[in-house]
């Protein structure tokens, strides 16, 4: 499936601002089953951007606006092609694969994605309450992940505005509501507790005609888990689905902090941000 994605971030300032430095991670990933065929970023007032790759492999762009300005717009446009990963709806892990989870080498290789973070830290009681039954009733970790996906989908209510970008997994579990970022953090915490490497993915979701899918017109977030012998597999707890070819990946990391799409520091007045996103099926496919 091929998509045309465009995103506009527009800041208005209450007073003119200056000496502004900004960083964004908006370029879709070009790796594995996802190909980024084209990508442009346009900044107004015009500014040059400097690109580097972060530790997680994401493209990071930095730009500077020294002179006074009273608005800022960042426009990105890209074309992305995705081939779905075969055979991920149903598969069973072999005994050897199951054993691999506990091996020293496996745990070392994915150490970053097995650890707790400020966002994902949960007290023991919650970890047990949420996973004990599912873990006992699943025949392997992959089945556990799928059951967990369904469990979170049932357990939490999707409500935009219920939480903020700073909300932690524990708060989500206690409030039982949130948005994609919150579903993701909670799922990361529970997978990692059971020794399943899991990472945070930010990106877009193609909703198309299927209005049943959640994820507003803006950006989306979901989980990827690592099964021995498999590439990273996307799991979307907000929609209780396994990711195929409707999720466009932009950045990966341990939690939200690693993938913050846009941030900046400046001198001047307060800001208001308006974001608009459009994901369309590409005509030419």
């Amino acid at each position, binding site marked *: 499936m091929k998509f045309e994605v465009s995103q506009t971030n527009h800041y208005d300032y209450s007073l003119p601002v200056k000496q502004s*430095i900004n960083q964004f991670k908006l370029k879709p990933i070009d790796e594995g089953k996802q190909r980024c065929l084209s990508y442009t970023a346009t900044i107004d007032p015009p500014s040059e951007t400097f690109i580097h790759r972060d*530790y997680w492999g994401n493209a990071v762009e*930095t730009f500077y606006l020294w002179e006074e300005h009273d608005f800022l717009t960042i426009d990105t446009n890209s074309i992305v092609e995705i081939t779905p990963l075969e055979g991920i709806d149903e598969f069973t892990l072999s005994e050897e694969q199951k054993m691999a989870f506990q091996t020293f080498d496996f745990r*070392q*290789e994915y*150490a970053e994605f097995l*650890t707790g973070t400020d966002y994902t830290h949960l007290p023991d009681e919650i970890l047990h309450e949420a996973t004990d039954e599912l873990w006992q009733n699943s025949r392997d970790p992959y089945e556990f992940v799928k059951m967990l996906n369904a469990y979170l989908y049932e357990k939490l209510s999707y409500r935009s505005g219920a939480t903020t970008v700073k909300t932690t997994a524990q708060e989500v579990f206690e409030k039982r509501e949130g948005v994609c970022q919150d579903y993701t953090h909670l799922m990361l915490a529970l997978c990692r507790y059971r020794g399943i490497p899991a990472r945070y993915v930010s990106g877009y979701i193609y909703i198309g005609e299927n209005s049943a899918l959640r994820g507003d017109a803006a950006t989306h977030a979901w989980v990827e888990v690592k099964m021995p012998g498999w590439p990273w597999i996307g799991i979307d707890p907000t929609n209780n689905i396994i990711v195929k070819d409707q999720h466009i990946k932009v950045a990966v990391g341990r939690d939200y902090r690693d993938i913050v799409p846009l941030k900046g520091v400046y001198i001047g007045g307060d800001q208001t941000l308006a974001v608009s996103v459009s994901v369309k099926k590409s005509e030419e496919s």
Partner: protein
Amino acid sequence: MAKYYNKIIEQKPSTSGFVKTEEEKVLFDLYKLNSSYDEMIDKNKQPRTHCYPMYDRLLKMSPEEMEKRHAFAHGDFLRQGITFTVYNDNKGTERTMPFDFVPKVIPQKEWHQIEKGLIQRFEALNMFLDDVYHDQKILKDKVIPRDLIVNCPHFFHQVAHIDVPARQHIFMAGIDLIRDEKGEYRVLEDNLRNPSGLSYVFQNRYVMRKVYPELFYDYSVQSLENQFSKIHASMSYLAPHQNPDPTIVLLTPGVFNSAYYDHSFIAQRSGIELVEGRDLVVQNRSVYMKTSRGLKKVDVIYRRIDDEFLDPLEFREDSLLGVPGLVDAYRAGNVSILNGIGNGVADDKAVYHYVPDMIRYYLGEEPLVKNVDTYLCRDEEQRAYVLEHLDELVVKATNASGGYGMLIGPHATGEEIEKFREQIQINPSEYIAQPTINLSSLPAYKGDRFAACHVDLRVFIFGGETPTVFPGGLTRVALKEGSLVVNSSQGGGAKDTWVLQDEEVDHQEEGEQSHA
């Protein structure tokens, strides 16, 4: 035999330290030796060879004279404002570091061993830092467990893949040494972030020269005076684009920081500008300082601000001490930041355990200066041992410094031990344990007599074209008798540290020392 010894014998053939005089009774009779190694007096209650002239001089000073000079030295520190700030209940109090005038004297042979060992360690630690922020070969080769490094709170993925000038991440290291019961030097701790205390090394020497000049008469001590030109050269060498005449600044959190004196002293003596975060701006990936005549480009920043506070764009957003965009300028290679960002991953208390392995891995050599045995509580077996022997061990939290978050088993109450037991069980990976080592001791002045007080030694090593070891260091002394805590925030003081000249140069410098 060393020359200083011969000289004494020649000058005072009839003086004998082996016969007890009245004064000696007063000053040294109560001097108690315990199981630890005393650096001045041996087991037979005789001064060690290189300490003999010092011992002799000490006996000649009258208690009144000592008292007078002691007060003068203290007043000198206060008047010059050589203080550090202690924070209690959010209220800062300026204090001088207590100073004890009996110096630690290091014979040159002993010093050469230390130098070699510390340069070896310095190089391995530097290679380790470059490796973990690039290819992580040492982790791939499983010499060090990967999770210990990548999940270390001081591992900053923000600076991964950044090529720092000359691949040197460490500009200044402060390595803390102790001597075990046999007198063998061991590394207690590496400080690769912002080791402080260099200014005290100089001030201790100035005060000694001023207040106790005659103690220098029998020794030729390596001078500290030319060290700042070396330090400046080392900073320049680490400038970006091999700029031969870089603008260098020292970035301080400001006048309320506890080590502010250190910052201002180093800036002044190395002839570099002392700046705060608010004096700097980053524009199009270059750093500038705000002067009364506009912006001026900065090439090298010797920073004394912790990593987390350096750049609100990349680290703590609430930091008002730092400079937004600094990491981007660093990444672009337009500014050098000394010490490098993320060095904390190499001086972590658990990573310390693996430094000997780093030396073997990167240099193919055996460590010349040993570690203190360390038990990692993250390891199940080692943890079990630690929990069983809490009353014998020293337990340290891996993320604390300055002697805080530490349990000294043999001196702790049952309650304290139980508190640590609980903490270790909750967060095992945050603790390490070491056998209680009786630090070596030196005489310290106690008003009417000398007492054996425990000491350690912080040695400073500088990078640059070739790593150099600063000749001397900060000898810290636990002035409370029997105490093993030497940190200044916990009642520790300082002593001057003398590294003796090579014998060859000894002769040439002879004329000078007589009026030193």
